[in-house]
């Protein structure tokens, strides 16, 4: 029972990070019908920029409170990621909006590798230790479950951001414009909506979320690395598909479900396969789920769209 609760908690932590990244995928997909392969790498950019800021600030003004350091890191990482996201859309994808469908996909893969290579040039190939700005010292065990302030912080921040995004999309003027553009961007244009502006805004918001997810991810795993965005990016995409791509609540549900499945899977796989497979196979769950969803329920848990729209 304790293992069960512990795995639930671990799953919620990683799941809420996946959900944040998945929102970025799903928003872009909802509007452009494009899978932005480079989205996972924005998470990496966010984490490394935040790390750089914290390191520089700590060297310049020693003895700052960790929370100030964290806020400063986020305050730099989010705008940087937003700018990168905007540039990717402006330079890369916008011109390909009416190109044959393979063209934007291949461009996106290129952008993903470009970001990784640039990060490798700037920060090197080595793994960097990400400082523990929020305490990871476990608190008093509750019902036998070990919880650290960082884990609570991660879940709270992620849920607050998701709530904020839902408000933005459902209540604000920009949100309405986004929904209209997603429906049909030509007609939205006729209604006086600046479709290009809305699409750019979508990329910017998604990139900001990815930056925050990057900081949370790096804090939880205490590591930052030029290729760190690949796996969470892929899993977040899985989460988006699982929830129904293009569907915002779906991305959140998908992220949490995926986090839980992975956590339980890693915990119990040895028993289930009689010791043949162990927890080093953890990353396979995401792919297996992805495959299964695409075969049996391509519209996802909450989605209405069908995947094989020709």
């Amino acid at each position, binding site marked *: 029972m304790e293992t069960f609760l512990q795995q639930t908690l671990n799953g919620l932590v990683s799941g809420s990070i996946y959900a944040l990244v998945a929102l970025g995928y799903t928003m872009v997909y909802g509007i452009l019908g494009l899978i932005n392969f480079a989205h996972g790498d924005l998470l990496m950019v966010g984490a490394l920029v935040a790390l750089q800021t914290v390191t520089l600030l700590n060297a310049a003004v020693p003895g700052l409170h960790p929370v100030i350091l964290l806020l400063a890191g986020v305050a730099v990482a989010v705008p940087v990621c937003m700018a990168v996201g905007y540039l990717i859309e402006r330079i890369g994808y916008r011109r390909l909006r009416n190109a044959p469908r393979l063209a934007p*996909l291949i461009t996106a893969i*290129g952008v993903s590798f470009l970001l990784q290579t640039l990060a490798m040039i700037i920060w090197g190939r080595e793994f960097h230790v990400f400082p523990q700005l929020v305490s990871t010292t476990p608190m008093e065990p509750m019902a036998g479950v070990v919880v650290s302030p960082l884990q609570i912080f991660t879940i709270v921040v992620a849920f607050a951001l998701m709530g904020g995004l839902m408000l933005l999309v459902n209540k604000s003027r920009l949100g309405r414009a986004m929904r209209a553009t997603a429906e049909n961007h030509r007609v939205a244009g006729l209604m006086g909506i600046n479709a290009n502006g809305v699409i750019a805004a979508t990329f910017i918001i998604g990139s900001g979320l990815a930056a925050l997810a990057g900081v949370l991810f790096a804090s939880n795993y205490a590591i930052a690395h030029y290729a760190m965005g690949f796996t969470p990016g892929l899993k977040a995409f899985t989460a988006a598909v699982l929830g129904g791509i293009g569907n915002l609540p779906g991305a959140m549900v998908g992220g949490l479900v995926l986090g839980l499945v992975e956590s339980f899977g890693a915990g119990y796989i040895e028993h289930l396969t009689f010791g043949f497979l162990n927890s080093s196979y953890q990353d396979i769950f995401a792919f297996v789920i992805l495959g299964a969803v695409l075969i049996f329920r391509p519209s996802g848990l909450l989605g209405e769209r069908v*995947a094989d729209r020709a």
Partner: protein
Amino acid sequence: MTTTSSTLPLPASFALDRRIQRPLVILLALAAPLVALAMGKSWVRVLDFALLYVLLAIGLNLVVGFAGLLDLGYIAFYAVGAYTWAFLASPHFGIHLPFWIVLPLGAAFAALAGIALGFPTLRLRGDYLAIVTLGFGEIIRIFMNNLNQPINITNGPQGIDSIDPLTIAGLDLSRDLDLFGFQISSLLLYYYAFLACVVFAIILVRRLQISRIGRAWAAIRDDELAAKAIGIDTRMMKLLAFALGATFGGVSGGLFAAFQGFVSPESFSLMESIVVLTMIVLGGMGNLAGVVVGAIMLTALPELLRHFAVPMQMALFGKTLLDPEVLRMLLLSLAMIVMMLVRPAGLLPARTRYAHRDRRNA
């Protein structure tokens, strides 16, 4: 049926007559390793690898260029071929089967893997397919990395070594051949063996492209709904593209294992899939000549960078700012983006959108 490079907007003096072009290409292919040998053995090695990549690129081009299915896990089939050879012709399990059993088996396993991958994913749109195939490639790599316990099958990250070389009719290609007092380097022997495979592959694919199957693929690529409407069994045709593309990967992988004498999961990373994809994007999707040129260019690239970029940086800055590996990744990713934005059809674009026109022009 002829090389398509004549469509390039080259100055008139470069636009060679096709009757000259073909013998010229053949001569170049035959003489290239001899020239390379004069420059040093490492360059022949590069050429050998270039041919393996040509084979891979031809296979991936079947799937991506002809049928329009973006496969990002293609290197998995290469891995299947390579590991089949490693299992059945090395001291790892103590099995030493000859190449004419191992190579077809590797190709068959790869084709089966292709069908296994294609079957569930065929209903998917291009972008989903890309991610599922990418996931498939990763799964294969994770298994290769971890299947060393509880039963040691793949020997994990250490890989399998002392793999049997390619031996054709008693001739061991890994040893220098002593022919009437002339020493013929093993690298040259491998080169001509690989060249034979590549030539066979090119003839096969050229025939395939203008066949009913090739035209069906082109129709599916250009408009799947319309293709279905005119009675093409799109499911079957896509599966066929996957299986045939995978076969090429499997053969290439087997040859790779024999040539290298060593396989490990490291050789089959996502990066490799991307490299092969860039080859066909750069050269020209759907055009064989372009694909071959792209593959040779990108295989030679790291070697060229090592020989020229490093000394140049030393001369300019006094140190190596970007090592060749980073520079290669940078160029690859930029190539993909810039090609798509500026010249989406590649350096040597496919001449016609519909293969049957080729027949009339030939």
